């Protein structure tokens, strides 16, 4: 049996390595072609770019003038309708991602600052009950305003602390002073209120309500009326 010389083995190793490299290059090229070239080729203008003629003859045409008048009237009507949605009254905007609030009067920003909104925590019990602590998003309005509001503790507040849930009318459900000096109701149990945890303002820590510091809360309480809009996003 003939033993291959050292040069032959080296050439074989080189050839195999070279083949692998070629396969790798081919695979990468194929992938690049499918991922980048084909989508780029799809973007080759297939109907041609729009050519603006602005024909003077057309501009003198009665039908053209009529079309332009009609479309201008439509735009005016739509603009009027769109602007009618914008509230001229006072309203509040709450940004739940950055925990910021903005207060507007006559479409002008009059105050802004930090607030606290829902923590996005889901509390689960072994019995299968669960609560999600998030601030709802969308358009709301002020349903009611209260000074020195007491807090009626819901079930989750006891579950969260490992306490037994008391009956609905039990005295332990009522706490005073924890919601600050004022509360504005947004419906479904959600409130805009004050807090004793001021160091958490600007963070997502609440059970769904919107917490504010005392000064901001007072201005908001005095600016917004029942029926004023609150936009939460």
């Amino acid at each position, binding site marked *: 049996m003939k033993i291959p010389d050292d040069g032959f083995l080296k050439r074989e190793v080189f050839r195999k390595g070279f083949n692998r490299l070629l396969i790798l290059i081919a695979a990468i090229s194929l992938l690049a072609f499918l991922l980048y070239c084909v989508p780029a080729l799809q973007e080759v203008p297939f109907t041609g770019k729009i050519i603006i003629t602005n*024909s003077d003859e057309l501009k003198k045409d009665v039908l053209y003038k009529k079309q332009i008048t009609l479309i201008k009237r439509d735009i005016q009507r739509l603009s009027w309708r769109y602007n009618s949605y914008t509230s001229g009254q006072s309203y509040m905007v709450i940004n739940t991602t950055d925990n910021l609030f903005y207060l507007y009067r006559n479409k002008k920003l009059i105050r802004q600052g930090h607030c606290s909104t829902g923590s996005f925590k889901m509390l689960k019990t072994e019995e299968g009950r669960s609560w999600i602590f998030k601030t709802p*998003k969308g358009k709301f309005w002020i349903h009611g305003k209260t000074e020195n509001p007491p807090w009626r503790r819901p079930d989750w507040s006891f579950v969260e602390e490992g306490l037994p849930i008391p009956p609905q009318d039990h005295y332990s459900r009522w706490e005073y002073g924890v919601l600050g000096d004022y509360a504005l109701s947004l419906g479904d149990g959600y409130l805009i209120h004050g807090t004793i945890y001021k160091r958490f303002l600007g*963070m997502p820590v609440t059970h769904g309500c919107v917490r504010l510091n005392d000064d901001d809360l007072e201005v908001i309480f005095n600016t917004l009326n029942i029926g004023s809009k609150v936009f939460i996003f």
Partner: protein
Amino acid sequence: METEKIFISADRRAKIIAWIVIVIFFLIYYTVMAMLAPAKKMETLRREYGYKQDVNNPTDDRIFTDSTYLDLLHKKSFLQSRVTMAATDSIYLSISLPDSTLKLEISGVTVHRAQIRRINISTLFSGSDNYIILSMLSSPLTISRNFSSIKKEPLMIRMAPKDTSEYVPDIIPDTADYEPVNYIMEMDNGIRLHIYQEDKLKPGDGLYRSLFDIYHRMRYAAKIFLRVITFRVPEYQPYIKLRIPRSDAKIIYRALPEKGQIALYF
């Protein structure tokens, strides 16, 4: 022995050449089919949104190449779409490419504004059939699917303590948590809106963005591939790629509902 070696080598070479020819033919077929897709999409749109001549009130075709008319049509289409969305209580997005702005709005009130830093859009939007595109955009675009590097609702599950001894008060949330923000929203009419974070706040942000983009290019290529191997023209998905600051991108993604609506002015 030597003849056998030459024979094997020639046989192998023939096989390689045959494979190369097959791959090249497939690539040509694949490319042709992929390039037919935009024309097919345009044809579908033309059937649905194309201008239908009114016999009693005929329109001169030259009006569709008149800049005054087209500018007004752009405005009307955008407004019409926003009016439709403003009638709901939901949060929606208005994109104005000429102003480079994105606006989150609720019932006609702008609640957040973001500046677009970079824009890249499909040629479909600058094609000669502007009327068709504008008619399509006169109704809001509805998001059908989201692909994102961040969660829409970052829920954290916590088990309730069994008694007071197990109760641990909440600690301050870790606001230093950092995730790159890139997402794609696929609309019901096939348009894809890519929103990528522009700023490179941490090393690797650029790499994450590229990987996210490559992953979704692969998904799109796979869709084309599956259609092509079954001898069907693939579905063309026009795109709008925007780069905006990370904080704005995060706010917009978290604020928009799962099936949110979008108005586009281009």
